[in-house]
């Protein structure tokens, strides 16, 4: 019963895998077909080469030991051998190159489709999916999904070659055909069984290496703690356990491989010995010529090598199907932020914001449950509330990084759903707590492709208290930061991110805890400069008293609704929940012991 189910599953997998191959062929048919044609040329040339070798032996080489052979037949033999030799080479060339092109094109197509999705999907998707997974879709999954495709032309050629070889063996002598009939399927079966027996240890070893790497990562990242606690030996033992498991699984796989490698080397030679024994008898019986026998020995030699690889295609099938399934998931994820049908312009001048009855679910639970407030043009407002109350979500709704489940957000009287998104985000800038810098220069990170005057970049950096440290960097504003470049501290990154928002002279500026990693003394300078230099509507999501102080008015969120609003001192007096939070912040800032 289990046997049957597995067989059924295997067939299903096979069919799904083949469907994938067909789909890929449809994507880019031309290089694929050229490649298959090349492979067939290779197959035919290979068989013809050995036939020519046999003929040359019979008509040139052998007679030459009884007396001189005419030069014409010698050159004819050379011509034939070289023609088929070059034909074979050309066949390999076309097959290899065009199957490469076909595979790379399919991969590029899939990658572009993934990239399209990454652009169109909501921010929430990116927030919820680990970066590693997003990268894996782009690289490992695409590769796995297409790996089954590469060898298809090759396999076609090998199958054609095997059939041709069997045909020519049958044509020459049924006894020799019998040997072929034994050898070829047993090579294919051996391969298949090898691939199967390798699957488990290979998969386990793959997992083991992941675990080794996870332990190494964690332990080396935590080196400070490892050393202060004197856990070096314990940590080494932790790694050793994983390393031993990896060794054991690799040895298991290596044992299988050792057997099969040796077997794959031996089998064709065994078959050749058999072929020579039977063939000599057939030569003696007058059924075949010596040349034909030599040709067949050469043919066995040419065939045994590619036969080694045919089992691998079948082994790739499950991986391909799984890889493609993961990609399909990305393709299927729905895009819910629809662009407006008739984008409206935002009015000129300072902008106000109205939030009307906004309700927003997170994992099915409402975190904003009917939030209503407004911010007048040029007003500065602090949004305060306990952790997890949805302050950051609210900030994101204001620039339409997501749409509320109910209610409306108006900027300058225009519903953000009707506003041109790009224009909206140009006029309304948001700065996040996690400040992401691109791997480019500081200047580029501030200007962000926009055409901004040098003076503006510097001025923004000065307001953000970033100018001084930027000038002290190795190449000043031209210093490359991020992944490969100079590493900035968290506070420095936040200051660059702030300058990035300021340089665009936004009409509304939203700071979502954007100075949390900045030294408090520097933060004070920044806030003072913002107050002095900025003429914009300002919304800050604040965790520090110092930041709250900046605002004309506080909007206090609690339990998904606006609990109170008004100047800081007022709220302290009349909203007990607010006072409690402020006192807690204060204690934190004063570092009370």
């Amino acid at each position, binding site marked *: 019963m289990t046997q049957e189910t597995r067989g059924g599953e295997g067939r299903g997998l096979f069919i799904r895998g083949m469907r994938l191959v067909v789909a890929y062929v449809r994507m880019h048919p031309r290089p694929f077909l050229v490649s298959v044609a090349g492979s067939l040329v290779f197959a035919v040339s290979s068989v013809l080469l050995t036939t020519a070798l046999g003929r040359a032996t019979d008509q040139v080489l052998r007679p030459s030991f009884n007396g001189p052979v005419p030069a014409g037949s010698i050159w004819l033999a050379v011509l034939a051998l070289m023609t088929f030799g070059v034909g074979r080479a050309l066949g390999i060339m076309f097959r290899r190159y065009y199957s490469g092109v076909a595979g790379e094109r399919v991969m*590029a197509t899939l990658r572009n489709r993934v990239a399209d999705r990454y652009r169109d999907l909501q921010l929430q998707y990116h927030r919820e999916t680990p970066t590693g997974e997003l990268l894996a879709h782009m690289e490992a999954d695409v590769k796995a999904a297409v790996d089954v495709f590469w060898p298809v032309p090759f396999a076609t050629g090998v199958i054609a070659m095997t059939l041709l070889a069997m045909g020519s063996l049958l044509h020459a002598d049924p006894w020799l055909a019998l040997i072929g009939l034994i050898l070829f399927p047993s090579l294919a079966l051996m391969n298949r069984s090898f691939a199967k027996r390798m699957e488990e240890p290979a998969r386990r070893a793959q997992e083991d290496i992941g675990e080794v790497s996870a332990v190494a990562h964690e332990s080396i990242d935590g080196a400070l703690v490892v050393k202060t606690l004197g856990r070096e030996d314990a940590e080494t033992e932790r790694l050793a356990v994983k390393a031993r498991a990896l060794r054991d699984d690799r040895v298991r796989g290596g044992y299988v491989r050792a*057997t099969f490698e040796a077997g794959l080397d031996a089998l064709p030679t065994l078959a050749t010995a058999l072929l020579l024994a039977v063939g000599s008898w057939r030569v003696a019986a007058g059924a075949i010529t010596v040349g034909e026998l030599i040709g067949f020995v050469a043919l066995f030699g040419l065939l045994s090598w590619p036969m080694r690889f045919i089992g691998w295609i079948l082994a790739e099938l499950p991986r391909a199907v799984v890889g493609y399934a993961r990609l399909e998931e990305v393709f299927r994820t729905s895009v819910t932020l629809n662009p407006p049908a008739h984008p409206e312009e935002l009015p000129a001048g300072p902008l106000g914001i109205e939030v009307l009855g906004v309700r927003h679910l997170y994992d099915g639970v409402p975190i904003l449950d009917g939030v209503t407030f407004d911010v007048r043009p040029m007003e500065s407002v602090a949004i305060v509330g306990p952790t997890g109350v949805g302050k950051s979500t609210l900030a994101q709704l204001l620039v339409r990084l997501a749409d509320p489940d109910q209610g409306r957000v108006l900027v300058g009287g225009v519903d953000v759903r009707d506003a041109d998104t790009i224009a909206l985000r140009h006029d309304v800038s948001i700065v996040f707590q996690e400040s992401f810098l691109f791997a480019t220069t500081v200047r580029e990170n501030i200007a962000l492709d926009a055409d901004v005057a040098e003076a503006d970049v510097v001025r923004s950096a000065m307001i953000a208290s970033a100018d001084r440290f930027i000038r002290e960097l190795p190449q000043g504003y031209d210093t490359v930061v991020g992944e490969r470049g100079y590493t900035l501290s968290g506070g420095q990154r936040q200051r660059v991110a702030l300058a990035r928002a300021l340089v665009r002279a936004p009409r509304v500026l939203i700071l979502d805890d954007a100075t949390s990693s900045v030294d408090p003394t520097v933060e004070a300078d920044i806030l003072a400069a913002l107050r002095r230099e900025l003429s914009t509507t300002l919304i800050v999501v604040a965790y520090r008293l110092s930041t709250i102080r900046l605002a004309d008015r506080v909007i206090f969120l609690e339990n998904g609704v606006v609990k109170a609003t008004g100047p800081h001192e007022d709220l302290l007096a009349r909203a007990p929940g607010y006072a409690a939070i402020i006192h807690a912040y204060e204690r934190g800032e004063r570092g009370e012991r």
Partner: protein
Amino acid sequence: MSTVVELLADDEDAKVPEHLKGAFAVLGRGIKESPELRTGLGFTVIVSLGVTVASLVTPVLVQQIFDKGFAPTFNARFVYGRCAAAFLLVVLAFVAARAAGRRLVRASENALMHLRVRTFRHIHALSIAEQSEEKRGVFVARVTADVDALQEFMEWGGVAWIISGAQAIGALLLMLFYSWQLATAIVLLLIPLLIVVWSMQARLSAAFNAARTRVGEMLSEVSESVMGAAVVRAYGLDEQTHDKVEHAISERYKAEVLAHFRAATFWPMSSIFYAVALSTVIVLGSVYGRSWGLTFGRVSAFLFLADVFLHVFTDLPEIYSETQTAIAGWRKILAVLDLDIEVVEPANGVALPRGALSVEAEDVRFAYREGAEVLHGITLSVPAGRHVAIVGETGCGKTTFAKLMSRLADPLAGRIVIGGVDLRDVQSDSRRTRIRMVPQDGFLFDSTVRENVRYGRPAATDPEVEASFVELGLSDWVAGLPEGLATPVGERGEALSVGERQLVALARAQIGDPGLLILDEATSAVDPATERRITEALRRLSAGRTVITIAHRLSTAEGAQRVFVFDAGRLVQEGTHGELVIAGGRYAALYRSWLGNVRDADAAGADEGEGEPARTQT
């Protein structure tokens, strides 16, 4: 993500120590460092040489049968006898090759495992002077990717040199035995083949390297686009970013296709040479065979010998590149193993006294490896039981100083004396329990809350772990955890919030009963409830102990009994908060700018006590 970073980090780490420059030196050292490889190596080599014989079975058999099996009539006994002997020989070779292959795998995997573990241990033994943030990725790569780079060489490439050499020599000898003239012709044919193969190989690997670089670039571009998704969207960079990704995908496509093209022209070469070799044998054999005194069988044998011989040389580039990969891997690993362990534990260490510990620093200087001096002679003294704070701007050296106090590295000059004992003479166990540094990130290991606390004193019992939380007033927090002390904290402790990780780190410190606490204050804000818990736990943890706080908030300094002000690697001021504010200078400047920041809170009168000195000063 990490893989991309590692990929890039690896490229940059091009600094090679002088003694690891030569390829043979590296290879020799590498093999010496793995004695596991040697046990039974002789067996493998002998068997491999024996297996070489099997590859010559076909030509010999052809020669024997056509020269002797049909002379003058078909000699069935001879032919079948030879075939049976060949059959048997190949079966024997199979058995031997299988055994040798298994031994090789066993020895190699053992060697890799030991090398991995040893390198890892060495990395942890290095002083903190080596452990910069950028280097972590490199170190991880050393024990993962770099060790794995040796696998192919150990399990195949190394022995392949021997086998290929034996095959080439065996085939050559046999060819010379059959006909030195034909042998010469085949060897001459080898010259153009080698030239073509090696020149194409260089271009091929260049193309593959270029493709690998494009893969790295594509992944960086993609990772920027997804990691920066919020900024990309909020600043309307969607299209530009998407274009960049598409461009990177297409650049990669082009590079890969070029590599495919070069590979596609490389491999068919052997097919052409095969045809040339066959033609050569046919022409020379049929024209001169008789006059050179050859037989049909011998010439036929060349049709197969030439293939064996030439094949060896088409395999060489691959073996060579495998060896290169291994040498590169070994070079990187050996460079790590050759880093000196700077912090050497004393042979007869002294235990630290009980109770609170005093701290003295005498003209302490320090520089990170390959860097300028960061501490320029720090001298300070903290009596036992005192609570002090060290303040200063980011990069002033205060965190480095804290690391020296817990001996994560030794000063380059000067000394640190704790509890009256030079830190270098303190027993390692005593140092680790009595001096406890609590880093600001509260790093936890992927285990339970209980285990993470127990790391602070491995011998601690479950009740003692629990007691440490009770002592810090955290029993209610533990009770609120889903599985209490058995709650898993996740990788790097990420299942807990930043503040909660701090709580566990504090309990971990408490259980060791340290006499000196070094607290690296956290900069990021945590939620108020946790903040309150941390404050209370810290108060209890500090009681009766010497506490040195690396302060990021001036309010902490305000509450300390003495404040040390660091600036650019020097101690510029010390005194109580009040004294320093009055004295003016660096501290007063820092304080004024901080004060402007929280003034309103005081004005609102929302706090009780302790803010006094600040207010009097304004």
